[in-house]
């Protein structure tokens, strides 16, 4: 089972996932959707890390992913809190409408 998956496949999958997440982040207008797309991007990175760790015979990749997931959890909670606060004020989740910093 272990040791027969070519690294190229892993990277291809990771790259595709990352691109999809990026597309979502750039093209969606809802704040939640953008956030979710960001999560996808992070997972793509995780995949790549695991893949390399496995390829190099080291567990460090997994350690890093472990941390990343934990951080993602923290980040998600704070981000959602922000989201809630924002929604309370603005009654909309359309990011285009949040433009107080416009010149």
């Amino acid at each position: 089972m272990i040791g027969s998956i070519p690294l190229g496949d892993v990277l291809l999958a990771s790259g595709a996932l990352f691109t999809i997440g990026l597309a979502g982040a750039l093209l969606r207008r809802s704040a939640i959707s953008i956030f979710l797309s960001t999560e996808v991007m992070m997972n793509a990175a995780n995949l790549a890390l695991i893949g390399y760790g496995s390829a190099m015979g080291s567990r460090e990749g997994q350690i890093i992913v472990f941390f990343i997931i934990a951080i993602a959890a923290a980040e998600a909670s704070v981000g959602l809190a922000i989201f809630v606060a924002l929604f309370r004020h603005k009654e909309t989740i359309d990011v285009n409408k949040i433009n107080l910093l416009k010149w």
Partner: protein
Amino acid sequence: MSASIPLWLVPALPLAGFLVNGFLGKRLGKSFVSAVGVGAVGLATAAAYARLVPFFAGDHSAVVERIAPWFSAGGFSAEIAMRLDPLSALMTSFVTFVGFWIHVYSVGYMRHDETEAGYARYFAYLNLFMFAMLILVLAQNFVLMFVGWEGVGLCSYLLIGYYYERQYAADAGKKAFVVNRIGDFGFLLGMFGLFSLFSSLDFDRVFTAAAADPGKYAPYLTLVCLCLFLGAVGKSAQVPLFVWLPDAMAGPTPVSALIHAATMVTAGVYMVARCNVLFRLAPEAMAAVAVVGAVTAIFAGIIAVAQNDIKKVLAYSTVSQLGYMFLACGVGAYVAGMFHVLTHAFFKACLFLGSGSVIHAMGGEQDMRRMGGLRSKLPITYWTFLIATLAIAGIPPLAGFFSKDAILGSVFEHGQYVLWGLALFTAGLTAFYMFRLVSLTFEGSFRGTPEQEHHLHESPPSMTAPLVVLAILSFVGGWIGLPRVFGENLDRFTAFLSPILLPLASAAERAEPGLSHGAEWLLMGVSVAAAVAGLLLARSWYVRGQGRVPDRIAASFPAAYALLAEKFRVDELYGLLFVRPFDWLARMLWKVVDVLVIDGILNAGAFLVELVGDLLRFLQTGNVRNYALSLFLGLIALMLFVIGAV
């Protein structure tokens, strides 16, 4: 005891006076200021004479005292060193002495009208002037001399503009400084030339080198001497740079006496005499000197005839007499020229101080047409003034006769008959306008207002004492230089001063032809006759005739008279030729170059920055998604860059 007094002490004492009065004088009261100001110069005079008396009496060889190294850069070095030789000893003797008496006079003249601060300022500047002048005459090299040269120019500016609140006085000070600067430019060029020729600016080195090898240097010396002479023209108010001297009369009268009669203006003559070796190797330059001197003498004399301000007459008279001194140097009679410097210092200072006494008595009035009959009210002033006038007119046995006769004799001796004729005519003219002055001021009846008449009084002793001293010197001062006809060894002055004329290696100089005794007597008689003629004409027209004849002449030739009275409109001419173009240039540089171009460039820069900012503003949409896109685009760019590099 005498040799132990260092030379540098002589200028140092007035410098100390300047510092004390300059910084503390305001607070310490007029008596203190007077004591310090007069005392400093008095002590300097004593110190000077402690060295001079043994010098005059005994060994006349030159003494050089090195004080300190000054600077050296590359091949050029100059040190602070002073020289005591016959020429500098002569200058020092009367600069200190006359300067001292003028300081005493100033106490009386300036005391009542000035504030404490103004009084202190006056004496501080006057002391500073003495310092600079003494540096000038005692310097051992051209650079130190130039320091003194510039210093006296500065003090002249400061003192002419003493009444700086009056526009006229402030302008006159600036005019003096600017015109002097033109001359200084020539002096500097001359110094550069000397350095390139001799690789040194030390007097001994330059003069001995030039005298030893005339053929090598002579071709270049004409230009160098002309440049140096330009400096003298500026400082000693010769044509065409004389215009500052009449306006300099805006300063207090003692200043006019000291600076613009006795000392500063003679610095040019001193410089030419000091450089006699160089000039004697450049005959064209000497010719120029002589011609300029003669032309100036007659030109200024003519203007003086038609002036009504007492000080202006004396100013033009000074310019004219300085012309005589340069004429003498120009024909090679350096000794005669310096003789006239000495006698002129005595009688001209006396005349100016006397005029100050008159002005003081008249409550500030300077127009002679409103004076008259002051003889009875101001006796001491009158008699001293008369003696000095006789001296300047050249009436024997007073001082002016001997020096003027020496000059005229030398000019004739060297075959310059045209110049001699001009000088003779000018001598008559001098006598005429001076006695016109005396007659208008002191003789006849008073023509002023009744208030002025009430105010008339003789001056206090602090002012009359210097007048007496200077009058005595005007009387006897010439007796040290009696001409040969009276006896072969009676010309002590020439014997004393001759060593400064170093012998030249070539026989290029024309030997002194020497006049016969008969010719000498004849020349003396002619010059006396001219003087007497002028005197009598003046008296006839102005005392007995009460000015009717000259008034009629003036009325008959109004244009000619106006030309004279307005000093040939030289200032207006200069204004047209020089001042207006420079003013235009300055204005152009300001309005066009500074405002339009330079400010324009700066403003354009600011405008550009603003423009770019306005354009860049559109990037700030406030929309997060746009920013995210920008980040992403940047990421792509980075990736491309890295890939490209790899």
